[in-house]
């Protein structure tokens, strides 16, 4: 992989980023309802003033240029719903929380997922395979909105070992990150097992086996590299998702993270926050997928981007 490739890839981000800005900007305005539609009817005069306050009375193209101009200065605009905050402030407050929760969960997920998947692939069709894989299936079938409340009930209310909600002390981190990590661990372990099983049948592994290397040596030295490709592919979007998509976990445990803004801003038609969060998500996706592509090349020398 050449430096030229890396730089080229980063350069591509600029036009793609503006494509996303444009697409999202116009798309969200087509949805019925606006930031000011409310249950109590608002007189047309007041509505006009509200719109003027946020430059929404101008033609859409003007608003778009206005937004672009602010964006170039790194200003994502004021939030419609959270009236005394800007989108920059909202992200600055909530992103660190989400990053912490996301990375903790991902650590759980990778630890549990790869161990369980590796174990299963090492001794396929034994109880070393069946038990972790059954858990994985449960993890996939029981979404966070089931796992979270169950964990809270058991460890928070019955046993009272851990706090039921909040985001202050380290104890507060345990249940949410486990809840969120569990779902991802399930996926990762399935993909790990699948990938490893696949690679085990390939010729170079058979050669290694014929040479008398032990199964665990083969697993560690040879199979993990190629076998993890599907996991790595999955991790790109998953990493972005785990940081930004923790809505359910955040509401169950009342965590002031970013995930809830994704749904909340859409539901409120808080256009500027929708834009801000979408652009952030895109940046994360782009960076994560970029890292994934680098990892491909590191793990498997045959992968070339020419």
């Amino acid at each position, binding site marked *: 992989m050449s430096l030229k490739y890396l730089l080229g890839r980063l350069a*591509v981000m600029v036009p*793609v980023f503006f*494509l*996303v800005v444009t*697409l*999202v900007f116009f*798309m*969200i305005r*087509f*949805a019925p309802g606006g930031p000011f539609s409310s249950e109590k009817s608002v007189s047309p005069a007041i509505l006009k003033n509200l719109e003027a306050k946020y430059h929404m009375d101008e033609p859409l193209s003007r608003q778009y240029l206005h937004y672009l101009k602010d964006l170039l200065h790194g200003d994502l605009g004021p939030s419609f719903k959270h009236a005394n905050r800007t989108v920059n402030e909202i992200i600055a407050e909530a992103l660190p929380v989400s990053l912490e929760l996301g990375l903790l969960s991902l650590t759980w997920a990778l630890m549990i997922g790869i161990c369980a998947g590796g174990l299963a692939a090492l001794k396929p069709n034994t109880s070393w395979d069946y038990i972790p*894989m*059954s858990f994985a*299936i*449960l993890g*996939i*079938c*029981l*979404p966070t*909105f*089931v796992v979270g*409340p*169950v964990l809270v*009930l058991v460890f928070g209310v019955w046993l009272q070992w851990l706090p039921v909600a909040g985001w202050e002390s380290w104890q507060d981190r345990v249940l949410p990150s486990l809840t969120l990590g569990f779902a991802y661990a399930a*996926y990762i372990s*399935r*993909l790990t097992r*699948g*990938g490893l*099983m*696949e690679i085990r*049948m*390939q010729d170079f592994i058979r050669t290694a086996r014929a040479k008398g290397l032990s199964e665990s040596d083969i697993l560690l030295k040879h199979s993990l590299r190629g076998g993890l*490709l*599907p996991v*790595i*592919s*999955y991790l*790109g*979007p998953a990493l*972005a998702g785990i940081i930004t998509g923790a809505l359910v976990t955040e509401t169950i445990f009342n965590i002031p993270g970013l995930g809830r803004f*994704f*749904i909340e801003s*859409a*539901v409120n038609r808080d256009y500027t926050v*929708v834009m801000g*969060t*979408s652009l952030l*998500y*895109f940046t994360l*996706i*782009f960076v994560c*997928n970029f890292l*994934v592509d680098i990892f*491909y090349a590191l793990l*498997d020398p*045959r*992968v*070339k*981007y*020419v």
Partner: protein
Amino acid sequence: MSEIMAQSQSIVNEEGQSLWADAWFRLKKNHLAVLGLCFLVFEMMLFFGVPLISTVGYEAQNLELTLAAPSFQHWLGTDTLGRDLFQRLLYGGRISLTVGILASLVSAIVGVIYGSVAGFLGGKIDGFLMRVVDVLYALPFIFLVIILMVYFGRNLILLFVALGLTQWLTMARIVRGQVLSLRHKEFIEAAKSLGIRQRKIVLRHLIPNTLGAVIVYLTLTVPSVILEEAFLSYLGLGVQAPMASWGTLIKEGVDVMDQAPWLLFFPALCLSTTLFSLNFLGDGLRDALDPKGAKD
């Protein structure tokens, strides 16, 4: 004969053979896979057959018998409006299983083709196709669905489109990752040097070799599609009340889990057993379709 020659030889020879008959034969030997298949068929028969002969409807309420425990009259208990959970699970299964399998298949087909083309052609085209995927990831899903509903109304086809829309993206990335690592392997190079057309190389040699990962991810997609349907019903797309799907049943079950745990347990059990069967079937299918396994 060198290994490369042997493989390219087999590529040429296999052309006339029936891959499918061969795979079916091998699948039948895998007991777990057969068990999984039988269970799925049994489930389908149950979902579509029983409601035809049963006298209680899934929507019939008995407000004086809400949250009743499983009994002879109501095998799996009743929900918050006193409706029979067994009936609701059967009807919900129709929707959830159909939606889950069809939407996953659609997302798999789109994702596999897209991903393998990107991976195989590589370079600028790959870059372009993958950036399109990045952009699609970033579009706010809620708005996408709301706008689609404004223009196309609330219909079943839109439900599949909306569900497939997000799922194929990750599938495409996984397949492309696999293809990137495969495309410089000897047997593909050999196929190229033999002058086999690109389309054929992708369809005949690359895609079959990615099937392992595809099937694993596909079996993961089914439950997430089933659960995501519950989210779409939040937006008004998906099954309409009083009809239920497994996703909505599980969701409702969580709210009452400390008084009526069976309302969470049975729907979750249904989903899990279905997923177990799908996994066994998936693993079996992968082994059966694996071009490398065939040489054993």
